[in-house]
């Protein structure tokens, strides 16, 4: 336990604001016996901009659920503007406190965006014109005015996330609480969030692992560990103390990467095919193949269109050779996941598809799953067995392997992801990081030639990310990594494919990608801002050491 410097503002002698929340000795235990909060004492003043950080499972979400009375008070006290939370106060208070949870689908419970955004203001008792004005201005702020009457299920993930934020902002809350607002968003959408949050005038509490995102927004940091407050100081102090970050699994400085100045842009139109299937009229569009080994997978002029006529991928040329480590980047909706689904044989597109030199036919397409392993973005969608052992054994059993072989493979896969001893555990009750590793083990046990990982690091705390990095680094097989995370691209890939509007626009060595400053103009993949923040933080840490 460290000394809590709770009145850091009083020291400077300015900006002492009215007390909004006063928590004293707050503890909370879930019905299943898990203690989530122990003796929390915290004062939150009007205008505070707090980053609430800590490892996965340290009690951040539980704490936030107390601040608007969703979870009942078990022991200790909680006062809002000096008053205890009686049912009467609770109703009025909730209208002043906006909370944005992680899954936007939970916020959008009406059948059109308009109704969703209007729900809060209408509960406040505003009249029809006021509500109408608010809804329109809020939807305009998040750039969704043109989709006002659409139902939520017709929106993309990023749009839903923005719509949920609009629904909260429309209540004009004085306190805004966000639980991992930027998980799974591309840098462009992240920028929209950052702009809106920076402009927000009231009190702000943000839970996030991404300290670089929080850097310009927050000025106070509260660090939770095992249900206790371990630090409560200025944000600058938090990021400048590397040992404290490390202790709380927040040390993101392992991910230092910086943009260079050189850049080398490959022409997307020049490509080569390993297997001669057709001739181009022009001489230069088929570059000579540098490598003569047979590729594991090859796509030539491959396109896929969704049944509703939206383009999935257009004219993709791609060669995957044994042992390659490839990163696939691009904005949300650029076609990355669609490309992965095509490689897995889930979508049947048009064009040439070779697997180990053989052109894909119906039979080969059906057996692609044995060759290519896939770890999807959301672990919840891919774990469907009542125990870890069954989960990892599912694939090998479907392959028709012998019982002994299945046993061996399960043991090996669990060992590889450091989950030995978890055989009997229930996947659903494990932590986010453990579930992600289990999902990887479930793919590894099939010993695929290629492993595709879709956003493996999303909403993992930095410590879990570091472990994942180590595991992935030790895998021998060919890897395709879909991510927005510059650090993982740098550490885990030698080659980078950039997708934009359904096409692969760049295919070059990762070092060239890292040096490429033109991308921002093309698809808003602005990774340089974070590098800038990171440099400032490293400076602070250096000063602190000196």
């Amino acid at each position, binding site marked *: 336990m460290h000394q809590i410097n709770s009145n850091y503002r009083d020291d400077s002698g300015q900006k002492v604001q009215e007390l909004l929340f006063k928590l004293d000795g707050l503890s909370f235990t879930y019905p299943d016996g898990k203690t989530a909060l122990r003796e929390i004492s915290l004062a939150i003043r009007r205008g505070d901009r707090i980053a609430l950080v800590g490892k996965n499972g340290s009690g951040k979400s539980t704490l936030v659920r107390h601040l608007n009375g969703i979870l009942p008070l078990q022991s200790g006290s909680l006062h809002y503007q000096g008053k205890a939370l009686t049912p009467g106060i609770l109703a009025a208070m909730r209208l002043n406190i906006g909370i944005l949870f992680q899954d936007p*689908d939970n916020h959008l419970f009406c059948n059109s965006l308009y109704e969703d955004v209007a729900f809060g203001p209408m509960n406040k008792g505003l009249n029809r014109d006021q509500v109408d004005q608010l809804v329109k201005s809020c939807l305009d702020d998040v750039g969704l005015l043109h989709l006002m009457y659409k*139902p939520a299920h017709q929106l993309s993930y990023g749009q839903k996330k923005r719509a949920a934020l609009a629904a909260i902002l429309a209540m004009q809350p004085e306190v805004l609480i966000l639980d991992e607002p930027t998980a799974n968003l591309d840098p462009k959408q992240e920028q929209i969030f950052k702009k809106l949050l920076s402009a927000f005038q009231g009190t702000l509490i943000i839970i996030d692992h991404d300290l670089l995102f929080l850097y310009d927004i927050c000025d106070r940091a509260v660090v939770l560990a095992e249900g206790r407050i371990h630090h409560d100081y200025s944000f600058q102090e938090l990021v400048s103390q590397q040992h404290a970050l490390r202790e709380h699994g927040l040390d993101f400085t392992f991910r230092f990467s910086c943009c260079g100045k050189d850049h080398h842009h490959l022409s997307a139109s020049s490509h080569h095919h390993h297997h001669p299937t057709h001739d181009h009229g022009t001489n230069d569009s088929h570059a000579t193949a540098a490598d003569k080994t047979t590729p594991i997978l090859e796509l030539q002029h491959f396109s896929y269109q969704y049944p509703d006529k939206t383009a999935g991928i257009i004219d993709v040329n791609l060669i995957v050779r044994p042992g390659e480590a490839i990163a696939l980047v691009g904005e949300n909706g650029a076609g990355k996941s669609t490309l992965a689904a095509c490689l897995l044989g889930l979508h049947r597109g048009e064009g040439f598809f070779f697997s180990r030199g053989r052109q894909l036919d119906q039979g080969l397409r059906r057996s692609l799953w044995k060759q290519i392993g896939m770890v999807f973005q959301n672990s919840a969608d891919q774990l469907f067995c009542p125990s870890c052992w069954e989960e990892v054994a599912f694939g090998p059993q479907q392959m028709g392997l012998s019982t002994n072989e299945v046993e061996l493979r399960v043991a090996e896969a669990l060992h590889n992801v450091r989950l030995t001893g978890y055989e009997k555990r229930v996947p659903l009750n494990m932590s986010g990081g453990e579930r992600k590793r289990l999902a990887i083990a479930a793919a590894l046990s099939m010993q695929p030639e290629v492993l595709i990982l879709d956003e493996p690091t999303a909403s993992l705390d930095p410590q879990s990310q570091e472990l994942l990095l180590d595991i992935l680094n030790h895998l021998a097989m060919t890897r395709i990594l879909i991510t927005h995370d510059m650090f993982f691209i740098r550490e885990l890939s030698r080659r980078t494919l950039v997708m934009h509007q359904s096409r692969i626009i760049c295919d070059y060595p990762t070092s060239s990608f890292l040096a490429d400053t033109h991308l921002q103009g093309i698809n808003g993949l602005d990774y340089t801002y974070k590098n800038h923040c990171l440099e400032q933080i490293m400076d602070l840490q250096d000063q602190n050491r000196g």
Partner: protein
Amino acid sequence: MDRSGTIIHVSSTFAAGLLFLAIFLSGLSIVLLVRKWHREPDRGAAPDWSIPTIDAYADTPSFFHNWDPAVKIGSLFPYCFLVVSLKSLFWCAVALIVSLLALFFSNIPWQRGLRRLTAMSGFLLMFLLIVPFTSPAKPGETLILLPMLDSLPFHLNGFYLALTIVIKAFAIALMMEPMLGTSSLPITLQGLVRLGVPSAIIQMILLTHRYIFVFQQEIIRMYRSMRVRGFTARTDFTTMKTMGNFFGMLFISSFDRTQKVYEAMLCRGYQGSFPTFSLPQTRREDLAKGGLWIMIGILLLVFDRTLPVLAP
């Protein structure tokens, strides 16, 4: 048993012709199906779990769109019951024509009507195929004896009965789009509240409707990750076990989601009811339209009972 009615013996050549025609038609439909199957790019990727949007055409003006939903449902729903009460083939056919006209004037694409008809076709086909052969004999009825099926006479009466059922079902199914697809779903359901349906039920229907799409996405993602690990649905033990797990997972995640949705609702000031603004007042013409439709229904019923044509 009195069998004084007409008995028609179908000659073998005629029966053979019928049989040939039936084989030809089913062959043709199989060929068409296979071609459709081949043209569809994604047949093997995921089963078709698409869910139609009921109010996709709610903003093209028409007779039905400009009708106060409370009065619209309040008159078309009883009208459906009047159609159900029809007994003779002729007047059922008239009801079907009324429905076709309604669909036409509601500016809703006919494919949507057709989709509803195909959804029921399996159940109704069973009636068409079984009822004519299993109806009890009645005095004075026409029987058709097919060659080689001497013990199973084809009752013309039973056939008419099955046909009236099919036509009535079609007539009502086609009324669904004009009745429920011509206002946005929340407005339609608000109309039901004004007709006395408890608003608690209506809110539940709206919520259920919204989350159907969320869970549809969820099962598509879950099914996809089962497929990439080699799962194919068959009629065997492994499939049962895996699908059992799949359903268990779906229900558990739905219970988790209920809690989270409820919390999100509380956070935006939910206190037990959804706020709504009142709808525009019912106009006189709304009532006139309602009266017109009830009149049509009553007239159909009266004609059906006084002038039965082809009644089984």
